[in-house]
Structure formats: structure tokens, C-alpha cells
């Protein structure tokens, strides 16, 4: 089986600081893959390099056989990688439904004049986006708040909306950056189930950054551990739990 996402030697430096050092991974289609590590380990930076937000200093990342480093975020998105943000970045003044619809914008096959003249193609496109966005809101359990401005959404729901919006881009791989941050136990359990369903029902491969060990260990099949930008362990949750280096990184790190 060929990997969906493969990186080799992915490295980025900020001034003197090597935030991520030779990040190698191979993620297979259908994986539910976790990345963990102490604060500042470089996890978010890996996502930023994968999604075109940061340009790696060196190394290669390829997705479905296409090289992705050096491409713009929009190009990477078109290839089928989507993500959420650790510090939520919703479009606050748009409604919940409209936020999800913006994810579907990139697949619109109409031009500006279709919309300005209100051609049938415009209405078809609006319906397509609305239906898809609504489906995904239902999937995430947000359909009742569809009309609310995103800024009025409670915190936990904001994270879910980010996931719905990312799914609306119809990705093959979704990168979730600490989706459970700030959620209570009940919400976390619900989120775990949702992440599984994203993989099983929507057939989207999941790459997950999460600090909540119980959640990560519970749903990921493979976990990669970063510390100071370097990979210090890779394996199943069991292997990671018993790895002395990981324990040290978390206990002795700070």
C-alpha cells in the first residue's frame, strides 16, 4: 500500500531555532494518526508546513504522489488536505452555515457573472453548497445553530464548526490541531466518536494533534511523538505508553 502522505527530512528553522528537525512520516489511507509532544515541540509547525502556511527550510512532503511543499495553502487544499487551527480561526461575521459553505467554495464551477446575473448555474451552486454544508453541520451536530453568526457560538461548538468547514473542502486528509482543547469530558467523548466517524463513514484520513492522552490513546492507531522538533518515538499507543523516552520528555521536559 502506498502512503497517502509521506514526508522525509522536513525541517524548518526560524532564525537560529530549528522548530522541526527532519520530520519523517508515512500516513496510509484510512489511518487515524496522532502527533503528540510537549508544548512547543513543533506539532503545529508540522501542520503549517503540510498545508502551505510555512515553507520548509528543507525536506520533501508528498501527498498522493504529488509534491506539496512549496505550494500555496489554496493549492494544497485543492489537492485534498484540510485542517483546523489550534487558535480557532472562524469567519466570525458569517453565519455558522455560511462558514461551512466557504469550505465548499473552492469546488464552485461558476464565474462571477453567473452570480451577478443570477443564472441557473448560480442557483444550482448555491444549493450544492448549502446542502453539503448542512449535511456536515448535521454530522457535527451543529444544524440547530446554522443561522447563528459564528461569533455567537459557544467555544466547543466553534471547534466543531472548524471541523465541519474543513470537511466541506472534501479533503482526503484532515489535520486536526488540538480539537479537544477547552472541552469538558462529555464533549471530549462525543468528539472522539465524531473523529472515528470522520474516518469510518466519511472515509477521510485523520491526522490528529492532541494533548489529551486519553483521547489520543483511545482513538489513534499510530502515534508519533515530537520533542524539541525531533521525532523521539513512533508506534502504537501501547508502545508509546511504555516508551521511556516519551515519559522523560513529558516529565523531564519542563
Amino acid at each position, binding site marked *: 500500500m502506498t502512503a497517502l502522505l509521506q514526508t522525509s527530512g522536513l525541517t524548518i528553522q*526560524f532564525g537560529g531555532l530549528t522548530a522541526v528537525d527532519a520530520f519523517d512520516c508515512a500516513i496510509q489511507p484510512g489511518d487515524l494518526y496522532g502527533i503528540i509532544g510537549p508544548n512547543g515541540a513543533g506539532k*503545529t509547525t508540522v501542520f*503549517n508546513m503540510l498545508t502551505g502556511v*510555512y515553507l520548509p527550510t528543507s525536506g520533501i512532503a508528498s501527498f498522493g504522489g504529488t509534491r506539496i511543499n512549496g505550494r500555496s495553502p489554496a493549492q494544497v487544499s485543492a489537492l485534498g488536505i484540510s485542517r483546523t487551527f489550534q487558535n480557532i480561526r472562524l469567519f466570525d461575521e458569517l453565519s455558522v452555515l455560511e462558514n461551512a459553505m466557504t469550505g465548499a467554495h473552492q469546488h464552485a464551477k461558476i464565474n462571477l457573472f453567473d452570480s451577478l446575473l443570477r443564472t441557473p448555474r448560480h442557483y444550482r451552486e448555491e444549493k450544492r453548497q448549502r446542502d453539503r454544508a448542512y449535511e456536515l453541520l448535521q454530522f457535527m451536530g451543529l444544524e440547530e445553530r446554522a443561522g447563528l453568526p459564528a461569533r455567537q457560538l459557544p467555544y466547543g461548538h466553534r471547534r466543531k464548526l472548524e471541523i465541519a468547514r474543513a470537511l466541506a473542502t472534501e479533503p482526503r486528509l484532515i489535520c486536526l490541531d488540538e480539537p479537544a482543547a477547552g472541552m469538558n469530558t462529555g464533549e471530549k467523548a462525543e468528539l472522539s466518536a465524531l473523529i472515528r466517524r470522520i474516518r469510518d463513514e466519511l472515509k477521510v484520513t485523520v491526522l490528529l494533534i492532541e494533548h489529551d492522552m486519553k483521547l489520543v490513546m483511545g482513538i489513534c492507531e499510530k502515534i508519533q511523538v515530537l520533542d524539541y522538533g525531533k521525532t523521539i518515538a513512533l508506534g502504537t499507543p501501547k508502545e508509546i505508553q511504555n516508551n521511556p523516552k516519551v515519559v522523560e520528555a513529558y516529565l523531564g521536559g519542563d
Partner: protein
Amino acid sequence: MLELLATAEPGGTSLAQALLQQVANGIAKGSVYALIAVGYTMVYGVLQLINFAHGEVYMLGAYFSYYPAKWMGYTTDPEDPTFVPAKVPLYVVGFLFVCSMACCAFLGMLIERFAYRPLRNSSRLAALITAIGVSLLLQNGGIMLFKADPRGFPTLIEQSSVDLGLVALTNTKIIIVVVAAVMMTGLHLFVQKTRPGAAMRACSFDMRTARLMGVNVDGTIGLTFAIGSIMAAVAGVLVAMDQPTIDPLMGLMAGLKAFVAAVLGGIGSIPGAALGGLLLGVTESVVGTFSTTYAEAVAFVLLILVLLVKPSGLLGKSGREKV
């Protein structure tokens, strides 16, 4: 290039000569831009606000010395009953400068206190529009009070041409350059070496942290406006002395171009303001030898070019957004 021009043709020497002369004039012009530009740059550094009213402070700087001079009986208007074509003693000149500086400092702080402080936590756009409003207010208030037509400024210093070897400049222009150089250096030292200067730097680095560390933020912002306004006042009097006419709209273009100079040099940087001002002044003067109308466009063409190549300006620092 100059050499080439000098040896090419007999007429070449005079062209090189003329260009050199324009460079000298440009330095004088640029010194004025620099003096005004520091006000923009310091306020922008602290509040991220384009203080559109700053050009009007410069204009008022000129009027704040015109009126005291007039009341003391110094005027150039022969129609004026108080007309005395007397020579102005040096201490009076000094007094006029101080008077204008004090009035402008007060005005600058007043503007900050009543127009900008209430908006410190609103959107930057609201603050910008307010700044435009203050600018319009001062400009049109000026037109109402002083009348729109230009006024002759009293001869504070008898103008004469000074031969500097390769070029010749009027003594007023030389005074402009010297005063500007002294004031800019003084300001730079003030900001780098003194406690209030350190407070200003702290505020422009990060206002919230500065406050937490015990910096009197409101006081420091007030001081920033006062200093910027003092520099503009000096520029206003110097230009009035050199021109020697003043009008309520003189701050419009001068202010805009000084702001351009601040952006060219890198907004937030005092040496940048000096560099930007000189660059703009010299380029404008040199282009002016060929076409006076296109000289007006120089500022904006330079601005766009610099922004496209290095959006943070020549001496500005660029930041990278953390995600």
C-alpha cells in the same frame, strides 16, 4: 554618472552643476520632510495610527509664530497699519520659535486627549477616520480664522545666498538643514538614552506589556504627540521663514509627503524618517529640474516602489505572522 555628464559636452558641466545644486536644495527640502515625518513615525509606532492631523499641526506651527510676530509689530504686509519694516532681533526669533513649539505641543496633546484617546480600543479604521476629521477641522477652522489666501511671513532673517563651493544655498535653507540635523540627532539620543525615551520605545514595542511593567502609558503617548508636534512646529516656522508665505492648506501636501517619507524610511524608525525625508526631498528636487509637474508624482511613485519591494520600508523591521 556625474563625471560622465561633466566630460560629455560643454553644456554637460552646467547640467552636472545644476543637478548638484538640486541635490543641495533637495537636502533642505528633505530636512523639512524629515522633521514632519518623525511625528508620523513616532505616533504610528506607538498607536498604529496615521495621524492625518499632523500636517495641520505643521501648518499651525507657522501661524503660531506669525501672530505673535504680528502683535509685536513685525509684519510684511504694507497694507497693515502695524507695518514696520524693522529687522527682527535674534531673541525675538528665538521667542517666536519657542512660542510656536509650545503651542503646537499643547495642541498635539489636546488632539490626542480628546480625539484619539476615547478611540484607543475601537477599530483602527475609526481612529483613522477621526484623524481625518481632526485634519479637516483644523484645516477648515484655519480657513475660517486666517482666511484662505496666503499671507506674507515677516522677514525673521534677511535672506542671502551663501556660496558653498560647488553649490550655493540661501542662508535660510542652511539654517533649515542645520536645525533639522540638530533636532533629529537630539531626538534620537532622547529616545535611545533617556528614561522617557525608553518608555516610548517600550510602548511602541508592546503597549500592554509596557503598562504591566509600570510604564505610564497615557503620559508616554501624550509625550509622543508633544514631541512630534514640536518637531512639526519647528518645520512650520522654518518653512515660513524660507518661503516666506503661509496659508491654511500648506499642511495638506507637506503632511502627505512627510508621511510618505516616514513609510519610505520604515514606519516607527526615527533614522528611517530622516533617511526617507532626505531621499524624497532630493529625488523630488532632481526630477524637478526636468519637469516640475512630474516632480509632484515622485513621492508617490517612490512610495509604491518601496512598498512593493520592501513593504516595511527601508529601515523598518518586518514581522512574520505566527500561526
